[in-house]
């Protein structure tokens, strides 16, 4: 499966303002729900309590299963300043991929997507510095190029 076709420019915010975990999750959730959803943020925070999804090297993949969505939903955020996300390497997180799916998603798309994003992140962190483009369209193009390499 490919990840880049699932990305939508209106769900990519490359100028995340919040510097705290809860605030950033709120911003990302707002993108997928079109409004605030405290319940979904709570579920994501509960998942974080079981272990941070900040995988290190400036990247986090917050994810959860929730009855508050009816299909796989994805949002991307980038913060130049960095977010305190309690990542495994204790460093600030800059790039975030939010992935939410219903508890019983068709074709196990959720786990496949998580696996794909993890593979993309491995490629992204190979370089010393995270180079994130300025526009959502360019970001999708960058992910597409990475996926072409790791096919």
């Amino acid at each position: 499966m490919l990840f880049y076709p699932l990305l939508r420019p209106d769900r990519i915010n490359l100028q995340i303002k919040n510097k705290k975990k809860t605030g950033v999750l709120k911003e990302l959730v707002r993108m997928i729900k079109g409004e605030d959803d405290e319940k979904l943020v709570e579920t994501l925070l509960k998942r974080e309590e079981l272990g941070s999804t900040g995988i290190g090297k400036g990247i986090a993949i917050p994810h959860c299963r929730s009855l508050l969505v009816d299909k796989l939903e994805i949002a991307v955020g980038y913060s130049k300043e960095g977010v305190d996300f309690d990542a495994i390497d204790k460093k600030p997180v800059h790039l975030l991929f939010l992935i939410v799916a219903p508890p019983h998603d068709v074709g196990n798309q959720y786990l496949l997507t998580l696996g794909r994003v993890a593979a993309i992140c491995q490629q992204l962190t190979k370089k010393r510095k995270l180079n994130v483009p300025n526009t959502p369209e360019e970001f999708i193009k960058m992910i597409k190029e990475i996926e072409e390499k790791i096919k």
Partner: protein
Amino acid sequence: MKKQIELLRELEEFDSILKDFEKKEYQKLGFLTEPVSIEFVKMIEKEREKLRKKIDENLLKEYDRIKKHYGNKVVVQVIKGFCSGCYIKLPSEIIARCKNEIKTCPNCGRFLYHLI
């Protein structure tokens, strides 16, 4: 105080997250520290128990009964008027009422969660 249906939703979500933790595909992704420590298992059990304690005893019994019967999918979404557990078309009265109260699917008996 949270509505019982919201607490059932939280339990379903928590259980589905734990189910993922048991899957090899998930474990390979590196979100969990390997090997899983006894402290981690205890912490999860404690969190789950905390959540269960907030739920009405009879509802919890029914939750466990459905879980035992179906394996998973205890609380299911109502999507476009259908039960997403057994895909039967639901009566409009049940659809309207499950927004505010606990309702089960007349066919499969699963708890219905209305996604507003």
